[in-house]
C-alpha cells in the first residue's frame, strides 16, 4: 500500500466553442494507492466525469483539450504516451464502466460478442478460448445460466444484468484500476445493493483499485476508503471517509453533508439546502468558485483563489480560512433559510 498507483496533478481540461471556452476541470489533484477505493463526489457539472474521461484519454478533441497537468499511472505520464501505447493501457490496465448500461452496450451485437471482443483485443487467444473465458466472466459477475445468456442481446437483459455485463467486460482483462462512473445511478436500490456487493467482492479477489464517481454520498460511505469533493471543476476537499464525515472543513462539504436526507430529519423540519446554483464555467472564476453560495464568504473570497493545502496529514482543503491558527468554525443552521 506504499506507492501510488495513480496521481493526478493540476489537471486542467477545457472545451472550446466558437464563442467561449469552458474550463470544465480546473486544477484537480488526486492520488490513489493500490487496492484503494476512491470516491469522487460533486454536483452535475462539477467535472467528475470529465476528470475520469481525461484519465482514460477519451476526451473528444476538438473541442476538448487537456491544457495542463500530469496523469501519472504506475509512474508513467499518460499524457505523453502515443495513441497506440494508450490503447494497450486502456482496457488492459485501466477499465471503465459507465452510468447507463443500455447506451454503452451495442444493441446489434450479442452480449457475448462484446465481451469476447474486449478479451481478444488484449489477449492473443482463439475465439473459442475467448468464448469460454467470457462465459466464466459472466458467471463471476453473477449472471445465471451464462452459457445461454452469452448469446442474448442487450435488450433481453434487465438493467441490473446489463450493468453486470458491463462489469464483466471491464474486468475481463484484470485491470489494475477500474473507473466506475455513476455505476448504480440508473438502477433501483435493491439492484444497486447487489451491484455494489458484487464490486466489493471482485475488488477483494482481483486486487483492483476503484475510482467511484457518484453524487450519492450513501454509495461513498458504503464503498470507499477515501473521498474527493469536487465543485465547479476543482477539488475543494479530500481525505479519508472517516475524516470527511467527522471533520469536514470546506463549507461546500458541510452543505453537501447537511443536505443529505437522513432518517434523523423530522417531518416538520426544513431541509438544509445550499442556496443558488453552481457558477457558469464559461466565465473565468477569479476567487473561490463557491463564493456566491457560501454563507461564510468574506471579501478575500471574491478576489483570490484559495490554495489547496494539506490541513492535517492526508486531509486537504481549498478554503481561505484554514490556517493553523484561525480555522473557520461551522455554525448550526447556516444552510437553512
Amino acid at each position, binding site marked *: 500500500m506504499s506507492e501510488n498507483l495513480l496521481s493526478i496533478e493540476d489537471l486542467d481540461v477545457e472545451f472550446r466553442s466558437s464563442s467561449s471556452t469552458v474550463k470544465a476541470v480546473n486544477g484537480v489533484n488526486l492520488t490513489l494507492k493500490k487496492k484503494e477505493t476512491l470516491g469522487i463526489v460533486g*454536483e*452535475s457539472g462539477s467535472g467528475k466525469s470529465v476528470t475520469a474521461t481525461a484519465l482514460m484519454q477519451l476526451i473528444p478533441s476538438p473541442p476538448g483539450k487537456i491544457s495542463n497537468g500530469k496523469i501519472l499511472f504506475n509512474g508513467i505520464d499518460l499524457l505523453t504516451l502515443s495513441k497506440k501505447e494508450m490503447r494497450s493501457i486502456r482496457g488492459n490496465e485501466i477499465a471503465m464502466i459507465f452510468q447507463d448500461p443500455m447506451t454503452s452496450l451495442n444493441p446489434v451485437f450479442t452480449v457475448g460478442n462484446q465481451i469476447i471482443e474486449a478479451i481478444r483485443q488484449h489477449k492473443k487467444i482463439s475465439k473459442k478460448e475467448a468464448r469460454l473465458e467470457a462465459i466464466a466472466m459472466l458467471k463471476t459477475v453473477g449472471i*445465471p445460466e451464462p452459457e445461454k445468456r452469452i448469446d442474448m442481446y442487450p435488450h433481453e437483459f*434487465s*438493467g*441490473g*444484468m446489463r450493468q453486470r455485463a458491463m462489469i464483466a467486460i471491464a474486468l475481463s482483462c484484470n485491470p489494475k484500476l477500474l473507473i466506475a462512473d455513476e455505476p448504480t445511478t440508473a438502477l*433501483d*436500490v*435493491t*439492484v*444497486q*445493493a*447487489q451491484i*455494489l*456487493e458484487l464490486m466489493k467482492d471482485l475488488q477483494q479477489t482481483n486486487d483492483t483499485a476503484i475510482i467511484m464517481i457518484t*453524487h*450519492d*454520498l*450513501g*454509495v461513498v*460511505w*458504503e464503498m470507499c476508503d477515501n473521498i474527493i469533493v469536487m465543485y465547479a471543476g476543482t477539488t475543494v476537499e479530500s481525505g479519508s*471517509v*472517516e475524516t470527511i*464525515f467527522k471533520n469536514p472543513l470546506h463549507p461546500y462539504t458541510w*452543505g*453537501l453533508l447537511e*443536505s*443529505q*436526507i*437522513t*432518517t434523523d*430529519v423530522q*417531518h416538520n423540519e*426544513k*431541509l*438544509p*439546502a*445550499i*442556496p443558488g*446554483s453552481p457558477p457558469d464555467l464559461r466565465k473565468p472564476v477569479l476567487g473561490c468558485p463557491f463564493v456566491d453560495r457560501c454563507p461564510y464568504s468574506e471579501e478575500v473570497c471574491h478576489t483570490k483563489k484559495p490554495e489547496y493545502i494539506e490541513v492535517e496529514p492526508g486531509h486537504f482543503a481549498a478554503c481561505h480560512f484554514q490556517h493553523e491558527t484561525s480555522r473557520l468554525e461551522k455554525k448550526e443552521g447556516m444552510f437553512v433559510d
Partner: protein
Amino acid sequence: MTETIIKATNLKKHFPILDPMPFKKSTQSVKAVDGVSFDVFKGETLGIVGESGCGKSTLARLINQLISPTSGSVEFKGKDLASLGIKEIRSARKSIQMVFQNPDASLDPRKTIESLIAEPLVIHKIGTKESRRKRVHELLEIVGLSSYHASRYPHEFSGGQKQRINIARALTLNPDVIICDEPVSALDVSVQAQVINLLKSLQKEFNLTYIFISHDLNVVRYMCDRIAVMYLGKVVETGTFQEIYEDPKHPYTKALLSAIPKENPFEQRERIILKGDVPSPVNPPTGCHFHKRCPFVMDICKNTRPELQELNEGNKVSCHLY
C-alpha cells in the same frame, strides 16, 4: 385528515401485447397495475414506492384519467371519474395536477415561461390576457423565481429552476391534489433539498394533497405521511411512514429498506440482498408475486395469493406470515 379526497378501488390496467398477426385478438397483457385500492385524505401526502416497472407511474396516470383503467374505479370527492364524459374529466383535472420526473422533457422548448405557465388558463378559458399575466408573475414569485423570468425560454434555466416552473404550472389552476411523479429524481442533492422544501411549504400554504411517487426511500420518508409499497402491480403494504420505516412487515418492504445506502461510514447494516430481478408483469409468478425472491418463502406462498389484510388501523400487509 378524515375527508377522503381520492378513493381508488380495485384499480387495474392491463396493456395488451399486440399480436403480429392482424385481426387476431391478443391473448397476453402486461399487468402494469393489478388490483390496487387506496384512499388519499385531504391535506396529506401519500407516498408510493417500489422498483422500476412495478406500476407506480401507470397508477399516477390512472388517477387523473390520462389513461382509462381496465377495471376498477377512481373516485374524486365522491365522483367516479371513469363514468364521467371527457368534458367533465377535463374540468376534474383542474383539481388534479401533475409534476413529472424530467423537468427538461416536460417543458416545451419553443414556448416562453409565461405561455407555459399560462397554458392551463388558456385551455380552460379562464381570465383575460392581462389577468393571466398577473397570475403568472404571482406564481413565479410563489415558487421562488422572479417575474422577469417570464419572457425567457426553458433552456435558460437550470434543472432545479425548471422543476420550479413545472410546479408553478401545476399550481396555476389552484388544484386540490398534485401528483408528483419522481419530482426530484433528476436533480442534484443540494437542489433536491431546495425543491423538497418548496413542495412542503406550498402544501402548508395552499392546503394541497400530494401523491408522491419516488424510488428514493429517504425522500419519501421525509415527505410522506402515509406510504404504499408496490410490487409488480400490487400494493404489498401500506401504513404511516413510522409504521413502514420503523416496523416494516412485508419481507419486500424490509429488503427495500435495508438496501438504502448507509448514512455514515461507521454504520453497520444488516442487509437483505434480494436475488434476481423483478419478474415479468406479463407472466407474474403464481401465488404471492414475491415468492421467488422472498427469503421467508413457505409452501403456501407458491400457490395461494395473499390478500391485503389490516393489521392495525390503516396498516395493511399482504403476506402469509401475518
